């Protein structure tokens, strides 16, 4: 049962949302400054939903580029 492991680059890109939305909670869990009328913590999470999607898009590009290179080598 041998599978292709994800590349290090993609893993690092996937780690960014975890740091931003989870591990760093004590840095952004506050009300002020309110942005667009939202408490800062809620604004931060909404912003990171979009940014996470971007990170994963980048990770997708990394994986596709690697797959293409691998199949070119064979």
């Amino acid at each position, binding site marked *: *049962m041998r599978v*292709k492991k994800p590349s290090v680059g993609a893993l690092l890109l996937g780690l960014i949302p975890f740091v931003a939305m989870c591990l760093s909670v004590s840095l952004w869990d506050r009300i002020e400054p309110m942005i667009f009328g939202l408490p800062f913590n809620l604004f931060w999470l909404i912003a990171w939903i979009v940014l996470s999607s971007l990170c994963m898009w980048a990770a*997708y590009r990394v994986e596709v580029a690697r797959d293409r290179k691998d199949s070119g080598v064979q």
Partner: protein
Amino acid sequence: MSPSAVSLATIFVIVAMGVAIGFLAGVHRKMDLEQWTVGGRGFGAVLMFLLMAGEVYTTFAFLGASGWAYSRGGPTLYIMAYLTLAYVVSFFILPQIWEVGRKYGMQTQSDFFTMRYGNKYLAGFVCVVGIASFIPYLQLQITGVGIIVSIASFDGIGRTPAMAISVVLLVAFVFASGVRAVAWVSVLKDVLMVLAAVSIGIGIPYIHFGGIGPMFAALAHSRPAHLTMPGATANLGHTWYISTVLLTSLGFYMWPHAFGAAFTAKSGDTLRRNAVVMPLYTITLAFIFFVGFTAVLVVPGLPNGDLSLLTIVRKSFPPWFLGVIGGAGALTAMVPASIFILTAATLFAKNLYRPIFAPAMTDDQVAKLARVMVVVLGLISLVLAIYKSATLVGLLLTGYAGVTQFFPGVVLGLYWRRVTMRGVFTGMIAGVATVIFLMLSHRDPLFGWSAGFLALCLNFLITALVSWLTPAIVVPE
């Protein structure tokens, strides 16, 4: 017509529309076991996407997320983080699960464990834990329908009869149509759900405060502690947030139905692309939070936070609109509940009972047993919903504490060749035992940590340790 008649009639029409779509999808198809449970494996990408999206937004997101925004405050934000991060996790495991699934012809999560570790008792244990974890998730949906009907009837119909009716409807719906029907009903449910969330998320703060910004300003002024963690709770602080987000985001695709859905994708690449786009779908949750936070100031003092969304809708809009929201909410409970009950019943009959107790059973008998299990599981969940009260979020977290214990076996099974069956089995037993002990003795959270997460750490540790101590197994290439 009285207000309660108007709102109940509207709910009835919406649910009837859903059931009609379900029946139409089920007509003219022979119902053998495969057809009944996996739609005959002929699911195209669109239907598959609908099914997966249908599973994500359950009544938990609708009533539970707003309920915690109302009763707990800041801790409810964990829901937004965990759903997004669950898709990030999926990027790194689902394409690989799909790949091995295609190679060895796997159809269910328990097939994965059988194939990778070559032990039917481990696979059976995975089924038992999976089915047990589904029960609080089912209970959650039934409780949700009970809340909807009793509020929409202006408290004329009690919660217990409402829940009993919903179980009967659910079982009838599942019997009549199976999984293909569910996928199509989820189209209606998702459109209604997104429209409902956005309209009340913007409308309710506007009606009472003139906008979302002024609403938050008022809340920040009068109840500033409510908007951050631990909010209105004593022990749901940052440690709880981190451990719970990790537990639930790693566990999301360990739910048997979500794991199994990966096998039906067209390619591994589809699953990767899904992981890029799906996080954006979680933005809808923000609107649900807006409603819950508005309710803190407008309808204070409710006995149960899960009532807050519908109570404030009832206060702010005419009865027909309450009916529309209630109908959307009812479908949001029924569609996922059908999927859970189908998955759990099939797991019991096909992956647990037959391989371990009755290898000679025919497919026909397995299908019959699965149908019996649909009724049994419906009744168990109903009884629990009536006699054991918990918040909707609390119920979901209980289920997650169970299914996330599969994570080490799955992820190490994919990526660590040295992991052994005995390692995974002992680790999983230790994890599940820890969860049961901590939850039954009301020690969740323990020193601020989510009990399920602590159990997961122990599970990982024991899996690795025992794997090192036991001889490596021969894995099919």
